[in-house]
Every structure is written in C-alpha cells, then in structure tokens.
C-alpha cells in the first residue's frame, strides 16, 4: 500500500518516544563499570590482608610501597600501603597475586589530579591504621600475658624443683 512505509516509520518513532532513553546525564548519573574493569584506586581490605607483600613483589613497575611491621608475637602487619598511581599500568597483577582477596579496584575512573604528590595513594585508611594499632596492642598484651604466665610457670617449676 502506498504510504505503508511512512506509517511504519511513524510507529518506530512513536515507540522510541515512549521508550527508555540512552542518555546518561554524566556528572549526576554514572554508568556502572563492569565486573572486570581495572582502573581508579586500589582498595585494601585491612582485615583480610596478612602483609605477605606478594602484591608488591608481583608488581612489574614497583608501584606498591609497603611498610610492614612485625608485632610482639612476630606476626607481620601492614602499617602503610602506598600505591604510586602514576607508575601503575593497571595490569591487575597485584590483585591477582593476593591470595587473601584483600585487594580490589574502586572503579572510579575520574582520578585526574593537579599535583604529582596527589598520585601517591595511601591504602591504609584511618580505620585501617586504628585496626593496625589495635592488633599491635593486643599482640603486645597477649605476649606480655604469655610471658607472665611463662615466668610464673618457670617460677613455680623452680620452687617446685626446689621442694
């Protein structure tokens, strides 16, 4: 029929008129990044990390600077975890190297900065640092308690031996 195509076309635009729109109002709305998107800042789960430094060893660009402190019981803890964003090539090797799944990406692609100093990212948050001190104190207290118990035991053994 003459004009059938025109009606079909009008049907298409009609459907689009009411349908869902493709536009995202960028700064207000952001597209969710995909599961395997690599980019942005690294995020460290301070409760999972065992300070094994495998991530830093795996990094081909030496982009990860760690400060690991052993506690009173000789267990290692992460005091500072600096990710040099400017050096990072987003190869994901650090994330893959971590056996504890303590590392992940925050998927925030808007990370440009004015100064080079801002490109050093500290991953141990205030909360993480508090946790660090807490475990250090706890280990110290435990070690002291153990030492005390050991000393008492030794004392008792000593006196017992005497008797």
């Amino acid at each position: 029929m003459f004009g059938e195509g025109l009606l079909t076309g009008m049907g298409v635009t009609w459907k689009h008129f009411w349908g869902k729109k493709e536009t995202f109002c960028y700064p207000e709305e952001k597209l969710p990044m995909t599961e395997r998107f690599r980019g942005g800042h690294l995020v460290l789960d301070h409760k999972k990390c065992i300070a094994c430094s495998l991530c830093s060893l795996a990094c081909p660009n030496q982009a990860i600077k760690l400060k690991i402190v052993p506690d009173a019981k000789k267990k290692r803890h992460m005091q500072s975890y600096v990710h040099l964003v400017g050096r990072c090539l987003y190869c994901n090797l650090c994330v893959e190297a971590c056996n504890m799944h303590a590392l992940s990406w925050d998927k925030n692609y808007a990370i440009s900065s004015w100064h080079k100093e801002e490109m050093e990212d500290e991953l141990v948050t205030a909360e993480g640092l508090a946790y660090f001190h807490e475990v250090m104190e706890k280990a110290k207290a435990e070690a002291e308690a153990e030492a005390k118990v050991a000393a008492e035991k030794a004392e008792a053994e000593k006196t017992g031996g005497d008797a």
Partner: protein
Amino acid sequence: MDILNMMMGQGVVSTLADQLHNLFMLLFDNAVVAGFLMKCVGIGAILGIISVAAIVFTYGERKVCAFMQVRIGPNRVGGRFGLLQPIADMLKLMSKEDIIPQGCDRVVWALGPMLLFVPTALIYAFFPFDNGVALADVNVGIFLMLAISSQAVLPFLISGYASNSKYAFIGGMRTVAQMLSYEAPMVFSLLGVVMLSGSMRMSDIVNAQSEQLWFILMQPIAFVVFVISATAETNRVPFDLVEGEAEIVAGPFAEYSGMRWALFFLAEYANLLSVSILTTVFFLGGWNGPFLPGVVWFGLKVLAMVFVFMWFRWTFPRTRIDQMLAFSWKILLPLALVNVLFTGVGIYARQWM
C-alpha cells in the same frame, strides 16, 4: 452557580471578555472606545499566544526530537528538565552580531523577516478559539484566511532575492514553487468541508461539526490531503526544501543572523500553530467536547495536532523538489478533486433520501 453558568453557557473566555467590556464601559462610558479597547486587548492576546507558542514549541520541539532519537533533550538550563532552555536560546539569538551581507539590497533584505510575520499573525484574527471567541468572525473566513496566508510566499522570495546569495535565491524560488503548488490541493480539500457545512465562516464550520459528525470522519481523504499540504505550507520536514540544509544551506534564511533570523523562527512556529488550529477547526470539531470548557478542548486538540506535525518532522526524511511537486499535482490535487466530487454526490443523494 456563576462558575457553572460560565462553564455550561458561554464559555470562560467570552465571559471574561464580557466583564472586561463592562469594565471599559464603566470607565469610559462610550461604546466606541470600549469596542476599540476590546479589539486592542484581542490583538494583544493573539500576539501573546503567538509568542508563548513560539517559546513553548521551541522547547517542545527539542524534547520531542530528542525523545524520538532516544535522547533526553535539554537537561541543564533551568533544572532537571531544562525548562529555561528557550530563554537561553532567545538570549543567545538576541546577543548575536547582526551581520549584513555585502552587496545585498539592504532595505528589502531587512523588510523580509518583518513582512513574513504580518500574514502569519494576521490570519489569527479569524480563528474561533471558543464559542464566540474570534477577533473577526467574518462570513468569508476561509477565503480570507487562504488569501492572506498565501501572501507569506512573497517575503520568502524577497528575502531570498535581496540576500545576494545563490543559495538564498534558490531557496526563495523553491518557496514559490512549493507553496503555490500546495495551495491548490489545500483549497480543494477545504472545499469538501465548506460544502458540508454550507458556510465559509469558521464558527459555522465548528457548529456544523457539533450537529453532524466531526469532519475527520466524514472527510477522511480531505483530512489527509489537508494535513500533508499544511506540512508543505509551513515548510516543515518532509517538505522543508525551502531551507534544506544539506542542499542550500538554509535557503532564504542563510544570510540572516541574530534577531532577524529569530523572526523567521517565530514565523515558523506561528505557522505551525496556525495550521494546527486550522486542522482542529476544520476537521476535529473545534471547541466541541464534553465536560471541559471549550477553550480547553480547543487547546488540547491543537496541541495534539502540533505533536503530530512534530512527529512527522522527526520521522521522515526530506523529499526531493521534483518528487514533491509531482506528489502535489499528480496525487494530492486529483485526490482532493475526487473528494469534492464524492462529497457533492453524497450531499445530492442525501437530499433525495
């Protein structure tokens, strides 16, 4: 009670007008002065309607266009929905440099856009916005309306000619070809309506539709022909060969900038509104409708027609000039004539029944 009367009997607008008239009579105590003032108010109202329509339609057009292209359109100026976008557009146009092309015929060139606005605004005088609400409800309404609106050809031609640019001139020539060709089927499609209602007065035509059926049902062919030729008359896609950006830059508008160009823009939207009003009056029963006051029905129908014209615009591609003229003379005109013939036979047959 008063309000109910207003809704049922006279309609909101005419009641308002009556009260205003009484006020003028009180103030001046002179029927001539009061009548003159009433006409001035009417003219002001019509100019107001045109300007508001231009503002609303620029926004509407952008939104409709965006929605049909799966975008969301203006969303920055004036909040989430970009409601102040037309104002931003207007400010932009007003603050632009007024460039006068070298070697143009200055006086004629400057007159073009202003003249274009005259016939466009003038035909609003004949439109019945509600029962008894028309600035000049003359008994040859359709005839005058067609005569005046066809004058819009000339400003296009002179601004195309005066611009001293080949594109503008081609555009001007095209306008003449296009508008004159589509005038013919348009007039013949309206002839069926005139035959059925037996009058050229616009309010009579609307009244005839409240007695009989809406003419879109009685004259479907005429409706289609009218809508197509109205699209061509307003130079909108698919018949926007006058501007045809891809071929002749912007036709007669090519050499205009800033406010002068805005006048063309205003005229285009005023035209869009007037063809929608015409379609409503001739085919969609004008102000007739249940429950709501007449003006509201009128407004709703007009807006629906405006949407249809915008829908055409953002759906169809531009035609070629030869296809377009052939379509007018070889298809639309015969269709309109056949429609006139059948309407005549039908009326004749009914007399004998």
